[in-house]
């Protein structure tokens, strides 16, 4: 599974960071960083929640 963020859409609301702090981090520069681009399968339901609750719909998952 691969995590993809459309950085043209991302506005750093940091919702994903709260839901999946192992995968996403918004740093002091207000930019989002992906900490783990190929997370283990057991992250899937958490990541699906992040996809759903991203206010910019900027996150997608690719198998």
């Amino acid at each position, binding site marked *: 599974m691969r995590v993809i963020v459309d950085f043209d859409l991302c506005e750093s609301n940091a919702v994903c960071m*709260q839901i999946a702090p192992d995968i996403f981090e918004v740093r002091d520069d207000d930019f989002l960083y992906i900490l783990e681009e190929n997370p283990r399968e057991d992250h899937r339901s958490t990541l699906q929640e992040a996809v759903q*609750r991203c206010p910019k719909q900027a996150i997608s998952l690719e198998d």
Partner: protein
Amino acid sequence: MLDTVTIVGASLAGFWAAETLRRDGFAGPIALIGEEPHAPYDRPPLSKKYLAGELDDDRLDLVPANQLDDLDLDLRLGCRATGLEVASRTLEVDGIAEPFDGLVLATGARCRTLPDTAGMDGVYTLRTRDDAAAIRDALAAGTRRLTVVGAGFIGAEVASTAIQRGVEVTMVEALDTPFGRALGTEMGAVVADVHRSHGVELRTGTGVDRVLGGDRVTGVRLTDGSTLDTDLLVVGIGVVPATDWMEGSGLILNDGVVCDATCLATDRVVAAGDVARWPNPRYEGLMRVEHWDNAVQQGVHAARRLLQTEQEATPFAPVPWFWSDQYDRKVQLAGRTHPDDDVQVAVGSTVEHRFAAFYGREGRFTAVLGMNRPRYVMQAKALLEQDASWDEAQALAADWN
């Protein structure tokens, strides 16, 4: 077990209810009924990029058309629910009765309007894509002076977009403090300062006495006796839940559809989004939330509730959260503020318009407000979800500094 589900309202809560039913394995027919002619779309950009003319219609879609098709919904757009009777499980759509089995109520809310402005050109509320397109076109057609009635977040975003297009903007707020209702006096003043620094004229402590003009708005007379000339009037004075069509349904209607803590309004009927009022166990009393994130989460929760037994059902207990983009500032608020909360800047500086502030009362941590501090807001929100004390919030702030 339900055979079919009818969802009334094809916006955020209704869409996510449908998506959740399918995701959780519900294989029966799902009808998604929407009053607007458009497939489910996202509303936040309407007062931001869409209004600025920077976003095409298709970029508003909640999901691409093929993903919507995959959900195999009976999508009934341009159809309006006109009546409901829960005892006989009868829904009325465009005046025609039909039975329902499971029902999701997600009809959202309608904008409050000013009296005697119906049909007047140049007077708008902003809720739908069509509203936004009309305001966008009016701005593009050479509006010089915009008056925004109501210093709330929709009005603030419209003001922000318009002034960046060179329009003169005046905001009129009946309360003494703009944004005071949501943010309290002190932080309301900080947001007001952001607007003033970008050239918005703020008129506070005065209401609208009368909208002037015949077929077309020409000005506004305020309750302080002064008059503002204007070409365009955007009214952002709040919304009322769209429950008028449910009068006499047998449901309890009181500033929304009153539900139990699990979002159940009555047997086989759930409600979600702006229209739902429920006892969030995290807070006292009933709560109705008009935010994007709530519509997503409550749509999911309500759909699951429909598939669950009473024993399986869980309360819906979110910490409410919203964001608003104004100029180059991102305002985020998580939690529930009260007018007499203590407020403390936890990190950053209000003068620089980049900070996070904590709200607290009676030893509890109640809310966090951020301006261009998303990382901090979300850390504080996690603490709010643990029902943290004021002391625990202080410890987090100490970590940050």
